[in-house]
């Protein structure tokens, strides 16, 4: 019997009934599976207010398969007894005269629906013998609903073009939607979270009027990476342990030799008001090619180009690109990462200006509580590390490094003496890991990335803090 037919039967019985009916009783009366009646109840419930159904659970005792067998054919003992011929064994004659099959009688009672006539102890004994089981039956008490009707029509699932053109939608009932179910995600591509953050940083710099520097040269000479920045040739950063040097091409072919001479002099003898480092500066060391260890090499190139243009015009520069370190790798350090760098060159810039620019920059990142710590960088003086107060960690954490480029770096380039250059830098990975709650950098950068994370990552809105989850008290 189809669902619809059962439902119709149910509705007719319900109309005739006095107040309501029980699903199990109805099933017994109609001689069908209880489950079929339950199905009909559920489909009627889905129609709205046609019926009301209240779930009830009752317990009753049922025979197990073995119990059924015993109720039918007698207990094992009785069967043994009956199988003994009259002439039988002497002992049996002695022990058993006749026997009443008590087990069978009890089981038959249960089968007849009169389990309550048995005592608790008798029932539990039968249960232990696995002849009886207590079964919970879930039934519905069905009564008429506010929109009760015996005639039901099938609900439509979706609106169709035909319904719209014929207007039949006006007369048809529609199956309600389950708004708790999830929708189907659109088929789409996704941008990488780190590069989404990169886009935002580019946007911030552009909003602040900073021009993007070319950084499309991973390979750099030691000259531009270190010497031009007044970083001495014995500096530990120039060690094999920290920097990737190249075997091929091992040496830079072209260096601006006039400028190189000025750099050499500043390192080895001083000049431009400096004592210099007073050591034997070697061109061979400056020619060594490497994978740039910071984008400051690109800034040095940009400032050198700026110095060649006369008269001097003030600039604001930025870059975001890859840098490389031959470092020990761990959960937060890779051999390559992205560096964000900002540079301002103008007459009469002060440390206060640097701090002012940093405040604006970090405000755009949603970081407002800043403080500055004296620090040492080989190519900036004064230098300051930038700290911000981390609400989660309840402490000050370093968010960037900054300073005023040394005259020993700027003057050999040919920049005018009263021009100051302020600069700051930070890594792209760190704020991204904090933003997206990633602990292991390998899950973010490189081929071991978790694509599901890429698929699921939200928009990058650096100045919009994610809303904190509602607390117990607030709920």
């Amino acid at each position: 019997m189809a669902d619809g037919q059962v439902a119709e039967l149910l509705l007719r019985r319900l109309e005739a009934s006095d107040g309501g009916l029980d699903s199990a009783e109805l099933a017994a009366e109609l001689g069908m599976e209880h489950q079929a009646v339950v199905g009909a109840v559920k489909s009627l419930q889905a129609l709205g207010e046609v019926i009301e159904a209240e779930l009830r659970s009752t317990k009753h005792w049922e025979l197990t398969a073995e119990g059924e067998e015993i109720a039918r054919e007698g207990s094992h003992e009785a069967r043994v007894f009956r199988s003994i011929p009259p002439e039988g064994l002497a002992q049996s004659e002695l022990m058993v005269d006749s026997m009443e099959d008590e087990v069978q009688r009890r089981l038959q009672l249960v089968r007849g629906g009169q389990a309550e006539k048995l005592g608790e102890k008798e029932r539990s004994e039968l249960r232990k013998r696995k002849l009886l089981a207590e079964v919970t039956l879930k039934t519905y008490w069905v009564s008429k609903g506010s929109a009760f009707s015996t005639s039901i029509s099938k609900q439509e699932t979706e609106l169709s073009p035909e319904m719209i053109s014929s207007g039949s939608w006006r007369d048809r009932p529609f199956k309600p939607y389950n708004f708790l179910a999830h929708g189907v995600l659109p088929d789409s591509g996704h941008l990488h979270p780190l590069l989404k953050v990169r886009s935002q940083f580019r946007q911030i710099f552009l909003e602040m009027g900073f021009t993007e520097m070319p950084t499309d040269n991973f390979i750099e000479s030691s000259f531009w990476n270190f010497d031009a920045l007044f970083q001495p040739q014995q500096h530990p950063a120039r060690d094999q342990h920290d920097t990737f040097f190249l075997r091929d091409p091992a040496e830079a072919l072209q260096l601006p030799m006039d400028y190189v001479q000025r750099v050499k002099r500043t390192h080895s003898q001083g000049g431009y008001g400096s004592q210099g480092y007073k050591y034997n500066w070697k061109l061979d060391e400056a020619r060594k090619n490497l994978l740039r260890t910071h984008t400051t090499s690109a800034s040095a190139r940009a400032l050198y180009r700026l110095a060649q243009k006369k008269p001097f015009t003030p600039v604001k520069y930025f870059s975001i690109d890859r840098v490389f370190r031959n470092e020990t790798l761990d959960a937060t350090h890779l051999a390559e990462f992205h560096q964000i760098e900002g540079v301002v060159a103008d007459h009469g810039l002060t440390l206060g200006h640097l701090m002012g620019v940093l405040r604006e920059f970090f405000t755009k990142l949603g970081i407002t509580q800043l403080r500055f710590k004296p620090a040492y960088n080989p190519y900036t003086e004064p230098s300051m590390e930038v700290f911000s107060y981390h609400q989660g960690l309840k402490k000050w954490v370093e968010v960037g490094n900054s300073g005023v480029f040394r005259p020993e770096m700027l003057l050999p380039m040919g920049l005018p003496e009263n021009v100051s250059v302020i600069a700051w830098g930070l890594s792209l990975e760190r704020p991204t890991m904090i933003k997206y709650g990633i602990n292991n950098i390998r899950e973010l950068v490189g081929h071991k990335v978790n694509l599901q994370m890429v698929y699921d990552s939200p928009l990058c809105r650096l100045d919009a803090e994610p809303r904190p989850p509602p607390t117990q008290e607030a709920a």
Partner: protein
Amino acid sequence: MPTVSVKRDLLFQALGRTYTDEEFDELCFEFGLELDEITSEKEIISKEQGNVKAAGASDVVLYKIDVPANRYDLLCLEGLVRGLQVFKERIKAPVYKRVMPDGKIQKLIITEETAKIRPFAVAAVLRNIKFTKDRYDSFIELQEKLHQNICRKRALVAIGTHDLDTLSGPFTYTAKRPSDIKFKPLNKTKEYTACELMNIYKTDNHLKHYLHIIENKPLYPVIYDSNGVVLSMPPIINGDHSRITVNTRNIFIECTGTDFTKAKIVLDIIVTMFSEYCENQFTVEAAEVVFPNGKSHTFPELAYRKEMVRADLINKKVGIRETPENLAKLLTRMYLKSEVIGDGNQIEIEIPPTRADIIHACDIVEDAAIAYGYNNIQMTLPKTYTIANQFPLNKLTELLRHDMAAAGFTEALTFALCSQEDIADKLGVDISATKAVHISNPKTAEFQVARTTLLPGLLKTIAANRKMPLPLKLFEISDIVIKDSNTGAKNYRHLCAVYYNKNPGFEIIHGLLDRIMQLLDVPPGEDKGGYVIKASEGPAFFPGRCAEIFARGQSVGKLGVLHPDVITKFELTMPCSSLEINVGPFL
């Protein structure tokens, strides 16, 4: 950044007051130091070797303080205390004096044999010093810190300190064949030749790092006294004979090296720091060094240098308005004794021998700013007016990557460094044909070369995400590096996309190319700078399933179905098609 470990209570005793951890942290921050860790010997050992080993170790509280890499004068408790006390105006900076001895001056004669290996040496004497266990430990520790930092792991300078009372001058600094050098080194019970020592120290966890400095030289540096006693074989080890102890009263210090300036700085630092414990505080006995050319110099230099800086320059550089008198006071707090002179706007600053980091007026400006307090400086915005421009290649990249995602492809971000195998063997190419740049000192094979193609990175990304539902559609727009005869090496901005599914999906990758060309406003067809694809071949592609892409009159890349060998070598199992083009020509 070097980290100096000091006993907290000893530090507070020397500072004449106690601080809470927070207060001391705050003081460090203001001064440009960082209280990195609060620990104890016991805690350190237990962290590194477990609780069992730590039992019985000292639980005296230690402060680990990060010191700026150019402040050699703060690398020991003595220097830290002096710096902070002067900063807080609790003491005046001591004046360091070099004095001549009552008797004969100690002489160190350098022979010409040292020229080829370690040509420079300087020396000084600390007279009537009084060590305690803590002072002695600090003295040893300072030498170690200097060795690790300014001395560049003893390559530039090596320090030897000796009990002068066990020796008799004059001393000779020379270089000899290793087999001709024989002495009992520190912590050994018998004599060894230099050759034997170099062998023994190969397994010494501390000393093995310094052996390379002289290992392959024909002559080794060595210092003798007038009786032929070996003081040291720099930069490896001192002799046992002249070892100093907590009871040593007179110390002969020699610094040998390849960098004369740094040798002088190192000597100045040691004697300024520890002359505090001499009977005549802050005085150092001179020693004479005779160079191979016969000229002799007296050390330590302990040079005080005068610099003139105008007050308005400091104000202008920092962005403050302080009177010259106040600025002089600020600088004096930074161990730079200063006074206003001349027209009332000039500040004369005395740079003491401890502040070798002051090499330019900008270093003085920084110290004035630190003493003023960075966080007291008024923040202002510069009036610099500029119009922003994007770097054209990056601008195009930004536009393209958004539309690549809109076309249903997901962005990957792979490493620029990889193994030779990734860009050559796995793609069926010989490494010599790749024009890749090679790294000379990779720690692992992952960093042998810079990538010449983006494809391996994308295939590795797929391999790491094989559990994800198919199809996988990935792209990356990033730089690759090619050796170049003009500039050495050059970056090229590439766009690569891959389609990985149960079917090769060439039509999908082909469709993506059509879409990209549409986005770049390049029409189909060979005329008018349009684009076409022509049957081609490549070792990475399945035969007959590869085409070369021509656009704007030049070849810009290839697309096709990957060769099953390539798929297998990248540990993939499904068919895959790919596309890689150079973005540069579309600017």
